[in-house]
């Protein structure tokens, strides 16, 4: 394979990879703090994409407005869902998983009913290429990567520097101790859910001009699970590494053997990896909690 092709595949992989990173980060957040295995996460991603598509393409609102509204919508929906459903079944892991599955089915089918089953495309916002030494990189993918990186940095700052972020981390380690420190566990979990779902909607929105939108998009949850497993449950750094690895791997895989097989191979690799490190590459084994 010649260099331009390789670079193109890598850039493709990185751009999709950043999406995985954003999604995995949000998923990790929801997994760590409110401790929900949020199987319906992919549906929020899809919802963000559809709303953005509807606002930006059909209603022709300004892009930034559409982006904000899409993100806001998923954020609010996430909060509502948490308040109505998950807050009531806090602590019952099976119940939460089942509820998440039910939500997933509801949202997937609902979107399909409202929007139909066919994929929608949207004209690219940034056309044009960056040409570096004979290698062509589409501008829109570069922009995607940069925007995603910016949001990621913002997330990091949120978690490390703000009070809310600290509260989120505290509750993820030990909710009871955090409560003793004055952290309102319910409110923190609600906010975490909001932020997580906002991330999903945002990711869906920004990828819409670059890739297509379809009701089956929710299936990305499978890949997000893989990323989280690979990078380690709850590990933000792991999510970054694993997300990018997945993106690039699938990019090359799609080119050579086709998407389905690439996924299987990835799954097999992860299974073998888990054999040697049950918590994932960088995650702490969640069961290592003092009795």
């Amino acid at each position, binding site marked *: 394979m010649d260099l331009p092709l390789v670079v193109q595949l890598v850039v493709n992989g990185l751009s999709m990879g950043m999406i995985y990173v954003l999604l995995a980060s949000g998923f990790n957040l929801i997994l760590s703090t409110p401790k929900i295995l949020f199987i319906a996460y992919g549906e929020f991603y899809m919802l963000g994409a559809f709303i953005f598509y509807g606002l930006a393409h059909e209603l022709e609102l300004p892009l930034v407005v559409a982006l904000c509204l899409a993100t806001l919508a998923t954020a609010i929906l996430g909060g509502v869902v948490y308040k109505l459903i998950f807050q009531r*079944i806090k602590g019952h892991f099976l119940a939460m998983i089942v509820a998440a599955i039910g939500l997933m089915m*509801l949202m997937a089918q609902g979107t399909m009913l409202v929007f139909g089953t066919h994929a929608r495309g949207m004209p690219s916002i940034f056309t044009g290429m960056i040409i570096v030494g004979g290698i062509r990189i589409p501008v829109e993918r570069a922009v995607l990567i940069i925007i995603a990186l910016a949001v990621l940095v913002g997330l990091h700052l949120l978690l490390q520097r703000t009070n809310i972020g600290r509260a989120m981390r505290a509750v993820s380690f030990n909710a009871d101790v955090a409560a003793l420190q004055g952290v309102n566990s319910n409110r923190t979990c609600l906010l975490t859910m909001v932020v997580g779902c906002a991330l999903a909607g945002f990711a869906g929105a920004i990828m819409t001009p670059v890739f297509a939108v379809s009701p089956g998009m929710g299936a990305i949850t499978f890949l997000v699970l893989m990323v989280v497993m690979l990078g380690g449950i709850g590990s933000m750094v792991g999510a970054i590494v694993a997300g990018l690895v997945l993106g690039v791997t699938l990019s090359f895989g799609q080119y050579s053997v086709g998407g389905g*097989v690439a996924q299987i191979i990835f799954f097999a690799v992860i299974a073998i990896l888990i054999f040697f490190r049950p918590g994932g590459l960088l995650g702490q084994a969640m069961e290592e909690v003092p009795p």
Partner: protein
Amino acid sequence: MDKLWKKYRLNRINIRSGKLIGLVVLGVILVLVPWLVHSPYYMHLLIMVGIYAVLAMTFIFLLRTGLITLAIAAFWGIGAYSSALLTMRLDLSFWLALPLSAIITGIIGFCIGYIFVRSPGFAFIILTASLGMAIVHVFGTFDVFGGYLGITGIPAPDPILLPFLAPIKFSRVDKTAYYYLMLFLVLLVVLALRAFYSAWTGRAWRAIGLSPRLAESLGVNLFRYRLLAFVIASAAAGLMGSFYAHYMQSLVPGAFVVIKTIYAHIYAILGGIGFAISGPVIGAFIMTIVPELLRVVREFEPIFTGLFLILLVLFLPNGLLGLLSLRQRVERPSESIARVGRWIRDYLPTSRSEHENRK
């Protein structure tokens, strides 16, 4: 004869117990079903109820050891495809393929479980979910499984030859033979599960389910017992998969999507996860038969299922049987059966009980 009796403590079984009589009556009713139900369509539903009930049982079984699995449909599929290939490529008889499939699925379950079970809670769920999703791709990608179009023309089970009676043929038109085979397999699984549970392994499993830390401090090897449960659950699912393959006589990968595992979950939760055997049966029965009786529109199915799941989990966490239990102290289905049995024993002519004693 008497010595044999004592050696195996058979005389400990109280023949006059209400529970036994009740179970016998239940058994009789189940056996008579084909004479009462004439529509092949309803027979089909009952057969599917049986299959799903077993799958739901494996879910609860694993849940009791602290494992939430999303791979039930995957092992069901592995059993189904194994059996299809064994009979079609290796020309084995169904009656050989059936146990072999269960064993093969058990072995695969061991290999997969060896990797999965070591992982802590959430990781295990994610891994089984991934397996559940990936297995459909595996079945669809490789030609040996017939690709996404699947396998057709799977042979029906060979007719059973009994002395003095006409051979029992398995036909899709008259599903009677399939029905009895299903009953037999369900009974087999139930007895096997109960046997394991009454043994010391059952005590260990129960301990793991109630308090894993405490169980560990008493010397229970969590990994080994959970792996054992995983293997048994896989083999059971594989067994039903084999039956399914030769009943439907065709397989598509899409039959084993993760949502089928979710169905198993629903049946188990609807029945009540506190009831390992009767719960799944009731849940499967209600979810399969009732929509048919009410002619619910099928198009909207996933939405309603999704909504139903959420409502179920919010308002009926103990399932239907759990709800009934709360109202009248703790009357479990086995107690109800026992009660009915006692009523029969006490109010019918004594010659009946004597008849049973002479056994």
